[in-house]
C-alpha cells in the first residue's frame, strides 16, 4: 500500500507540474505534451519512456487496489457482528474515513479522465484535437458540471493523500511521537499543493484566464 502509493504520489507531482505548463501558453503546452512521447529519443524509439511509465502506473494502481480490497475484506471477516451503538470515532479525522469510498470515486474519475483527455472519447473536441484545445473545451463555462466533477475528484485525492501519505510514513516505520507533528504537516502540505496545482487549471480556464 505504502510503496505503490508512493509511486502514484511521485507521478501526481510530475503530472501537476506538467499541467501548470498550460499557463505558459498554447505552443508551450502542446510542445510539452509532444515531448512526453519523444522522451528518450533517439536512444529509444518513439513513446518508449511514456509506455514504460504507463505500465508502471497501471501495475501500481492494480496492486494498490488489491491491497485495499484485501484489507477491507479482512476487516469485514474480523468483525462479523457489528456494534449496535454507532461506533464513535475518537480521532475525528474525515480523511481517514473516506479512504475506501474516496478511492473508488477516484478510480471512476481516473477512468473518465483517461477517456476524456488521453483517448478523447468523451472530450467535446474529440481525440484528434491538440491537448491545449481539449483542456479549454473541457472546462469552458458551458461545461461547468465537468469542472465541478474534476474539482470534487481532485479534492478527494487531497483527502486521500492527507491520510495516505501520513499512513505511509507510519507503515514504513518512520513514525515517532516527536515526529508526528512534522509528518502530519508534510502530508497536509503535499496534499494541499497537489490540490491547488490541479484545481488551478480548470478554474482559470472557466473564468477565462486561459483560452
Amino acid at each position, binding site marked *: 500500500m505504502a510503496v505503490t502509493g508512493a509511486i502514484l504520489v511521485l507521478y501526481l507531482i510530475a503530472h501537476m507540474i506538467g499541467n501548470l505548463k498550460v499557463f505558459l501558453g498554447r505552443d508551450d503546452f502542446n510542445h510539452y505534451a509532444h515531448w512526453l512521447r519523444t522522451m528518450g529519443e533517439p536512444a529509444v524509439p518513439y513513446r518508449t519512456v511514456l509506455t514504460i511509465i504507463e505500465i508502471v502506473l497501471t501495475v501500481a494502481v492494480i496492486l494498490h487496489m488489491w491491497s485495499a480490497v*484485501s*484489507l477491507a475484506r*479482512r*476487516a469485514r*471477516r*474480523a*468483525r*462479523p*457482528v*457489528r*456494534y*449496535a*451503538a*454507532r*461506533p*464513535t*470515532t*475518537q*480521532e475525528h*479525522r474525515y480523511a*481517514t474515513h473516506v*479512504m475506501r469510498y474516496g478511492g473508488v470515486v477516484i478510480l471512476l474519475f481516473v477512468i473518465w479522465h483517461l477517456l476524456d483527455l488521453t483517448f478523447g472519447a468523451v472530450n467535446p473536441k474529440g481525440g484528434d484535437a491538440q491537448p491545449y484545445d481539449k483542456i479549454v473545451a473541457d472546462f469552458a463555462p458551458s461545461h461547468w458540471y465537468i469542472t465541478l466533477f474534476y474539482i470534487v475528484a481532485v479534492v478527494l485525492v487531497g483527502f486521500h493523500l492527507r*491520510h495516505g501519505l*501520513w*499512513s505511509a*510514513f*507510519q*507503515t*514504513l*516505520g*518512520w*513514525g*515517532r*511521537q516527536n515526529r*508526528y507533528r512534522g509528518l502530519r504537516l508534510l502530508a497536509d502540505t503535499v496534499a494541499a499543493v497537489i490540490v491547488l496545482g490541479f484545481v488551478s487549471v480548470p478554474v482559470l480556464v472557466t473564468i477565462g484566464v486561459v483560452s
Partner: protein
Amino acid sequence: MKLTLKIWRQKNADDPGRMVPYELDDVSPDMSFLEMLDVLNERLIVEGEDPVAFDHDCREGICGMCSLVIDGTPHGPQQATTTCQLHMRHFKDGDVITIEPWRAAAFPVIKDLVVDRSAFDRIIQAGGYVSAPTGSAPEAASIPVPQADAHAAFDAATCIGCGACVAACPNASAMLFTAAKITHLGLMPQGQPERYGRVTAMVAQMDAEGFGGCTNTGECTAVCPKGIPFETISRLNADLLKATRKAS
C-alpha cells in the same frame, strides 16, 4: 439518577444474541460503572432472572479484565480510563446507555458481555518474551539502557492486554497490542537476540488469529486506557521491514 440500559444478552457462543433494555432507578453518581451493573444484577437475581455476565477482577484499572463497549466506545467516554474506573457522574439522569462486548471474530463471545481473549495469549506465546535467563532483579546499572529508550519501553510495557484497541479499530486489528510488546522488548538489551524473529512470529500469529489489518486510523491509541503511544505501531513496522530484508 434514572437510567435506561440496553445490554447485549447472549446465552452462549451459539446463541445469536440480542439487545435487552433495562430500567434502573436510584443510580448514585458516585458508583463506578461496574457497581451500577452489580446493582442491576442483584435486582435480576432477586427477580429470578439470569444476571448479566461481564468480566472484571481488580477494579483498580490495572488487570485488564473489564471490557465493555459503552455507547460505541470501548471503556466509555472517559479517556485513558478502564470501565471499572469510570464513574456514573459522567452520565446524567435519563440517559440511555448501550453496553456491548468487544466485537471481533478473534474474540468470540462466551456469554453476554464476556469475550474469550485467549488470542492475545497466543500472540504473546508466539514471541512476546525473552529466553535469556534473567534470574532475580539485577543491579539497576549493570546493563546500561539509554534514558529515552527506558521511558519508551516502559510506556509500551504498561499495556494491560484488555483488547480495547481491537474493539475500537474499524478493522478489528490487534496491531497496537502486538506493537506494545514488540516495542517494550525491542528497546531493551535483553530483547535484542530474538528481536527480528519475534516480530515475524508475533505478526504471523496475529494474522492467524483472524484479526484485521492495520490502516493507521489511530482509533486504538485514542481509547487505550493506558495510552500506549501510536509510535509503537511504527516501531513494529520498522522491525518487520528489517526482519523481511534479513530473511531475503
